[in-house]
C-alpha cells in the first residue's frame, strides 16, 4: 500500500514536470505576442515596450523564463499580465462562481442517471430501455450551444424569467425569496446543460454494469429462492454493480476547474471557463499556464484518488 502510494506520487510528479514543460513551450513558441508587448500596438512607445519586456522577463531566454514562472507559481506570487492581480486570487474568485454550477450539475447527473440506468437494465429490450438508449444518444450528439439556445427560447417564452448572467441586475433591493428564486432560475439552465452529456454517458454505464451483474449466478439463485424482485435488483445486484462508480468520484475532480467555456460564454457566467477564454484572447500567459497547471494537478490527483478508492473498496485488488 505504502509503496504503491510512494511510487505513484513519484510517477505523477514526473508527469507533472513534463506537463509543465510542454504547456510552457506550446504557449511561448506559438506565433504572436501578448498584447502588452506587441510592437504593433500603437499605444506603446518603445520605452514602455522595453519596460514591459523587462517586467515580464520576456527579454530572457526561455529556460530562465520557465524557472521564473514556476518559482512565482510555487511561491504564489504570479500576477496576471492584464491587470496585475494575483493569479491565485483571480482563479479563486472565479472558482467560487463556477462551484455552484459544478455542484448542481454533478447532483443532477448522479441522481438522474442511476434510476434511469437501473430501470433500463431491469427491463432490457423493452420500450423504456429503447427510448432511453435513443435519448442518451441524442443527448451525446446535441451540440451544447444549440441546446442552450433551444432551452433559453423555451424558458424565456414560457416562464418569462431571465436566465442570462448570475443574477438579475439590481435584484439586491428586492425581497429575499425573490432573490433566491432568481438565483435558482439563473443556476438551473447552465447546470442542466452541463449535466446533459454526463447523464447520457453515466446512465449507459450504469445500465451495462447492472446488466453484467444481473447475468451472474448469484442473482439467479436469489431469484430462484423466491426473493421479491425489488430485493434482488436493489440489494443483490445494485450493490455489486456500484463498485466501479465509487472510483468515479475521483475522476470528477478535474471537472472542478474545467468549467465549460461555451456554456459560460452563452450565459455570461463569470466562471473559470470564461476566465480561461478571456486569458487566451488577451494572451495572458500566467493565467493560461496556471489554469493548465492546476487542472493537470487535479487530473493526476483524481486518478490517484480513484486508484486508492479501488484499493479500499475492492479487496480482490492488490497493488
Amino acid at each position, binding site marked *: 500500500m505504502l509503496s504503491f502510494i510512494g511510487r505513484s506520487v513519484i510517477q505523477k510528479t514526473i508527469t507533472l514536470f513534463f506537463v509543465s514543460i510542454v504547456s510552457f513551450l506550446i504557449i511561448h513558441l506559438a506565433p504572436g505576442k501578448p498584447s502588452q508587448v506587441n510592437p504593433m500596438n500603437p499605444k506603446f512607445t518603445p520605452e514602455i515596450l522595453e519596460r514591459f519586456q523587462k517586467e515580464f522577463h520576456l527579454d530572457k531566454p526561455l529556460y530562465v523564463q520557465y524557472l521564473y514562472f514556476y518559482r512565482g507559481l510555487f511561491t504564489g506570487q504570479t500576477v496576471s499580465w492584464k491587470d496585475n492581480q494575483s493569479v491565485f486570487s483571480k482563479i479563486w474568485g472565479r472558482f467560487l462562481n463556477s462551484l455552484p454550477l459544478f455542484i448542481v450539475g454533478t447532483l443532477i447527473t448522479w441522481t438522474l442517471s442511476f434510476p434511469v440506468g437501473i430501470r433500463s437494465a431491469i427491463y432490457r429490450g423493452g420500450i423504456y430501455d429503447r427510448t432511453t438508449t435513443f435519448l442518451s*444518444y441524442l443527448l451525446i450528439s446535441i451540440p451544447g450551444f444549440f441546446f442552450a439556445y433551444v432551452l433559453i427560447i423555451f424558458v424565456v417564452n414560457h416562464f418569462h424569467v431571465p436566465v442570462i448572467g448570475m443574477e438579475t441586475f439590481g435584484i439586491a433591493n428586492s425581497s429575499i425569496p425573490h432573490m433566491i428564486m432568481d438565483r435558482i432560475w439563473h443556476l438551473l439552465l447552465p447546470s442542466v446543460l452541463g449535466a446533459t452529456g454526463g447523464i447520457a454517458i453515466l446512465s449507459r454505464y450504469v445500465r451495462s454494469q447492472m446488466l453484467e451483474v444481473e447475468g451472474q449466478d448469484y442473482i439467479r439463485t436469489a431469484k430462484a429462492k423466491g426473493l421479491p424482485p425489488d430485493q434482488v435488483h436493489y440489494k443483490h445486484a445494485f450493490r455489486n454493480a456500484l463498485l466501479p462508480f465509487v472510483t468515479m468520484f475521483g475522476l470528477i475532480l478535474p471537472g472542478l476547474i474545467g468549467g465549460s467555456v461555451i456554456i459560460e460564454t452563452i450565459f455570461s457566467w463569470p466562471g473559470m471557463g470564461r476566465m480561461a477564454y478571456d486569458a*487566451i484572447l488577451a494572451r495572458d500567459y500566467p493565467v493560461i499556464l496556471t489554469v493548465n497547471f492546476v487542472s493537470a494537478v487535479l487530473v493526476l490527483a483524481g486518478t490517484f484518488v480513484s486508484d486508492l478508492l479501488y484499493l479500499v473498496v475492492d479487496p480482490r485488488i492488490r497493488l
Partner: protein
Amino acid sequence: MNPGENHIDAPDYIEAPLAPKHTRMQEFGRMLKQNRLAALGFFIFVLFFLCAVTGLILTSGTKPLFNPAMVRLEEKLRPPLSKPNLQALRPDQVPVLNVYLMGTDDLGRDVFARMLQGAWVSLTVGFVAVGISVFIGIFMGGIAGYFGQHHIKAIHILFFLCLIGGIGLVLINAVFAGTALLLLCLSSIVFLLSARDKLPEKTLPAWKGILLGNAVSVDTLIMRIVDIMLCFPSFFLILTVVALLPASIYNIMIVIGLTSWMGTTRFVRAEFLSLREQDFVAAAKALGIGNFRIIFRHIMPNAVAPVLVSATIGIATAILTEAGLSFLGFGVPPPHATWGNILSDGKNFIFDAPWLTFIPGIAILIVVLSFNLFGEGLRDILNPKLRERH
C-alpha cells in the same frame, strides 16, 4: 450404423464448404438489418457524404450554381421557402430555384447554399482530424504493443534531445548554440557506432556504461507520453492552440487530430499485447516474416475493429468540436461558411430569425447522431461474441 457407411460418407464431408458461406460484406448487411438504429445511422451517413460532395461541386468555382457568398442586402432575414423579390434583385442575384429553401441570413445570403458549403467543411474536418489521430494512435500503440519490451538507451534519448533542441534553436535564430547541439548529436552517433564494435562490456569505463545502459522501455516511454497528453483539458488545449495559431481550417484539423489520439493508442496497444502472444504470430515469425509485415499484414487486421468503432465516434466528436470552435469565433475564417459559424452568426437574431439557429443546429445534431449510432452499431457488428449468438 456400420463403419462401412461412414467410410462412404467421408468424401461428402470433405467437399462440404469449410469456409463460412457468407462474405464479410453479406454478414455486415445482415447485421445492419437486425440493428435498425445502426442502419439508420449508416443511411444518414451516406446521405450526408453525398450532400457534402454535391455541395462542394455546386458551391465552388467562379460561377457556382449556389453562391454562398452572394450578399443581397434587400433580402435579409427572409424566412425559409420565401420567394425572392424579383424587382429588387439583379438577374445574377436571383437564387437558382427561385426560392430561398432555408431562408436568408442577416446579409441576405442564401442559407441553403451556405449549409451545402458547410457540410463539406464538417465532413473534411471530421475525417482528416480522425485520420491524423488514428494514424498516430495506431503508430504509437503498435510500437508500444509490439516493440514494448525493447529498451531505449540513454544515448538514444540524449541524441533525440540534442536533435530536437538543436533544430529548435536554429529555428529561433540562436544559430551558434543550435549548431553546437547538432554537433553534439553528431558526436553521439559516432560514439554509438564506435561502441557497437567493442562488445565485451566489462572493459567499458563507467560513463560509457551509463550511456549505453538501458534507460527506459519503449512501452513505458509511450504510455507516459499518453499520460502527459491526458493531463491537458482537451477542449481548453485545442482552444489555446487554435487561438494562438493563425486562423485556418487546416490548423483546426491538425490540432484536433493531435490532441485526440490517446484513446486509440491505448487500445491498439492492448490488442497488440494480446495478439503478439498468439500462435499465428509465432508461426509467422518462424517462417521468417519481417516485423513490419507481421504488424501490418497479420496483427493489424485483427486489431482494427475497436479502432474503426472509435474512429466513427471520433468523427462525431471532431464535428462537434469544430462547431464549438466556430461558435466561439475561432473556427474557419469568415467568408467560408461552416455550420458552427452560421449558427454563431444567427444567434443575434434568435427571436426574429430562429431558422438561422435551428437549421444548422439540427443539421449538426442529425449528422453527429448518425455517426454515433453507426459507431455503436459497428461495435456490435464487429464483436465476434455477438456474432456467434445469431
